[in-house]
């Protein structure tokens, strides 16, 4: 349910410095780690961060698992999501659960690319992958959007931690493959230009990127656009026949 903001004419914004401590593991992702992937809008660099400027963090129908959220001063924190496998990157973006027709449009395919990302420096992230099997937080990470507002508060609180973390790593749910990890990075800690590098960026309409998308779609039971079938058949027609 979307909350309605009460009006106020006198709320000076204040920095809410957490005084307590959150007990969590920190993982270091090493410099040079190049196993990360993302699916991103083609008009933006793969290493750019979504500014998340719009949207109410209490509204689970918008945003994602760990965005949008604000820092203690009320500034919106931008995010970049990565997955440790191309299938995971697709599963968390174009091929998400909860889409009734499980169909990706030609326009969507044309507007996105698959990119492999490397880390130029060591990153320190809150590690949510070692939660107890009966942990409510672990269960929430496996849920659909219902828990998103709660998880955004968790992200905001971890972001505000004195350790000044670069992000959060967790076990992705969309692929339902144990061990597949996702990470969300914070734009005020990580620079897309100097801390991340695009190793490769793949067109999803053809070539290797198209193959990756088709493989992931088969795995997820998704249909790809019919326009692609026409295009693919045209391409196939140009191949020498055996």
């Amino acid at each position, binding site marked *: *349910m979307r*909350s*309605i*903001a*009460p*009006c*106020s*004419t*006198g*709320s*000076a*914004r204040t920095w*809410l410095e*957490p*005084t*307590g*401590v*959150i*007990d*969590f593991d920190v993982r270091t992702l090493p410099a040079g780690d190049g196993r990360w992937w993302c699916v991103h809008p083609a008009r933006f660099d793969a290493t750019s961060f979504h500014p998340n400027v719009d949207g*109410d*963090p*209490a509204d689970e129908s918008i945003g994602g698992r760990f965005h*949008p*959220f*604000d*820092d*203690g001063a*009320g500034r919106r924190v931008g995010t970049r999501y990565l997955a440790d496998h191309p299938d995971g990157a697709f599963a968390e973006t174009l091929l998400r659960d909860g889409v009734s027709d499980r169909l990706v449009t030609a326009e969507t395919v044309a507007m996105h690319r698959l990119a492999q990302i490397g880390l130029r420096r060591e990153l320190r992230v809150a590690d*949510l992958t070692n*939660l107890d099997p009966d*942990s*409510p*937080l672990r269960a*929430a990470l496996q849920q659909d959007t219902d828990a998103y*507002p*709660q*998880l*955004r*508060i*968790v992200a*905001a*609180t971890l*972001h*505000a931690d004195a350790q000044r973390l670069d992000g959060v790593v967790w076990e992705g749910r969309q692929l339902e493959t144990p061990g597949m990890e996702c990470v969300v990075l914070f734009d005020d800690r990580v620079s897309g230009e100097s801390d991340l590098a695009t190793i490769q960026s793949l067109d999803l309409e053809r070539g290797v990127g198209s193959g990756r998308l088709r493989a992931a779609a088969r795995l997820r039971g998704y249909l790809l656009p019919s*326009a692609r079938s*026409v*295009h693919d*058949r*045209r391409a196939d*027609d140009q191949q020498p026949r055996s």
Partner: protein
Amino acid sequence: MSAVRSDEQWERAVEGLQDSPTLDADQLYQAQQHATLRRWVLDEVELLGPGEIAALLPHRVGTDSNVARAIDKLRERGELLAVRYKDVWRYPSDQITPKGEVHAPIPGVVVRARAQGYDPWEIVYRLARPIETPPPVHVGRPLEHDGRTLSLDELFAAAGELVSASAVAEPVHADTCPSPFELLAAGDDDAFDRAVLDWLGPDVA
């Protein structure tokens, strides 16, 4: 359908698209947003024509035949806020005090807003719409946890309580909130200044 026919349709579709004007999704979205904003201003804000606004400003523009020119000069200098609609300049009546002056903070706010790229419609909208500020229960903000050490599950549970508190908070309809114009009319300049601060940031000039 044969493969040949499919190919012909494909070619026709591509040829048709290559000749059509392209629309940038962002520009289209922004145009729609701006149209909505203008519609709101036209529906909700009392906009006066040049003659009507001049009648409210007798001390500034006089009453002779140069009234229209005097109004134009005030507008051009940024001392009067106006939007242009169907080739006529229209002036929000709320910028005028009962004593026939422009509210003192308005010209400065207009200059700062223009410098930040806001167009006159957006400025009128910002000054006339009810003020919205974050709710007292901040979903999406860091949790304050009072010196205690929390496990991740305790943090998650506390976040759930906060979300629940937010969901049951009494909704306040935007209609009951004052706009910056209304704050000026009520003489609450401090609240007006805070609203402008939230909108435009500190005045660095």
